[in-house]
């Protein structure tokens, strides 16, 4: 078998979706941990963290490129697989239900493509809002660095922005609740002990990341929106 052939197969496409999806899930977790510094009253730790990241230079660009490529691959194959899967059942059922039991059929599994596409739009806006958003400067340890803390606090002062973020983070949680464990299954990693474990881990990641990402804007909105 040619290596390229694998990525034309149903299994290979899902392999790519798994790898790229996991890289983004990993990024989301890291991003969330970094962002917890936003909950501090003191803007310095967050601004230092942001400054540190942007100071990585080439390494940062490399990570960004990898993530961007992952995202494009994820998007491309997700759309491809979804369209192919729709073609696999040209006549729909008049009535369709889940048998329950082991089945994970539900809102999350049937909306992966929609939550995914909405999340990508969100991502573009997210970068526009912050990375390329309003620039304020502040002085930390005698150095002029960007006051991203202020940008964030200013942004969430607006209730519409906050509400929009909350909704998007619910979608992220939904996407991850199926995505994480599913990625491991797509990688062929399944075992009597491992699978229930990774299913719980996936669910937990989804809950922590989404609840955490929701908590930050809400906290900012209600406590520090006036900054």
């Amino acid at each position, binding site marked *: 078998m040619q290596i390229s052939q694998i990525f034309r197969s149903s299994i290979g496409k899902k*392999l790519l979706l798994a790898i790229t999806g996991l890289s983004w899930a990993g990024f989301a977790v890291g991003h969330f941990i970094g962002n917890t510094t936003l909950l501090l009253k003191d803007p310095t730790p967050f601004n230092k963290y942001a400054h540190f990241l942007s100071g990585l230079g080439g390494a940062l660009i490399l990570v960004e490129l990898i993530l961007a490529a992952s995202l494009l691959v994820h998007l491309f194959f997700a759309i491809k697989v979804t369209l192919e*899967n729709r073609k696999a059942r040209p006549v729909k059922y008049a009535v369709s239900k889940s*048998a329950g039991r*082991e089945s*994970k059929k539900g809102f999350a599994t049937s909306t992966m493509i929609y939550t995914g596409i909405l999340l990508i739009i969100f991502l573009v806006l997210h970068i526009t809002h912050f990375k390329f958003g309003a620039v304020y400067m502040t002085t930390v340890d005698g150095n002029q660095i960007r006051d991203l803390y202020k940008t964030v606090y200013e942004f969430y002062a607006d209730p519409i922005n906050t509400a929009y973020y909350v909704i998007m983070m619910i979608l992220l949680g939904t996407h991850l609740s199926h995505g994480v464990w599913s990625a491991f*299954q797509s990688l062929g990693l399944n075992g009597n002990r491992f699978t229930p474990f990774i299913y719980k881990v996936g669910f937990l990641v989804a809950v922590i990341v989404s609840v955490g990402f929701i908590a930050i804007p809400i906290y900012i909105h209600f406590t520090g929106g006036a900054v």
Partner: protein
Amino acid sequence: MEKLINLTLKIWRQKNAKSSGKMVEYHVKDVSTEMSFLEMLDVLNEDLSLKGDDPVEFDSDCREGICGTCGVVINGIAHGEQKATTVCQLHMRHFKDGETITIEPWRARAFPVIKDLVVDRKAFDRIMASGGYISIKTGSAAEANSILIPKEDSDLAMDMAACIGCGACVASCPNASASLFVGAKISQLSLLPQGKIEAKQRAENMVAQMDAEMFGACTNIQECEAVCPKEISISGIARMRREYFKAAVK
């Protein structure tokens, strides 16, 4: 205890593969709760044929849940709501008087409808022909006990070998994927020393055939496992993927 119930049935009627079908409503009276679902359809067909109407064609053979011939989607669930049960083993005591039951054929591009509730599942056979075997000629087998297999592996392989090829996995999968069927066979054979020899070739060929038949890709929803009359686990799908990756990097 036996009770008699009345039911409304909404059944997919389709003259042949070329024509388009539609749902048709039927009322059946005095259905014994002791009947199996297919016996209920038998009785409906008796009535229809005496009235001069075309009976509803549906597949069935052994009527004891092992041949894999029968299968319809009942109220949106392949083989109906009961756990580990084929339609022929589903009994009417699980339905209520006055209930409306929707009955549809397996729906998948790879399983075209032949007539009414009967579909063509030859795609499964073509997948099996592409590698679902151990290449051994009659007469060339070694003494049976010269192949030792750990009981654990043998039991696990047997779990996978229990597949009856009914197609409920495809029917229930939102993607009409055949991964559970193919995964079960690839897993069963790759767990056995006899089957390991051809494992890579088998995984490659069977997956290629599965894709060529235009089944969907598995997105790990696990509905297949929930409806599988033999309760085959999606661990078989994961094992198929591992075998496939091994074949890819060899």
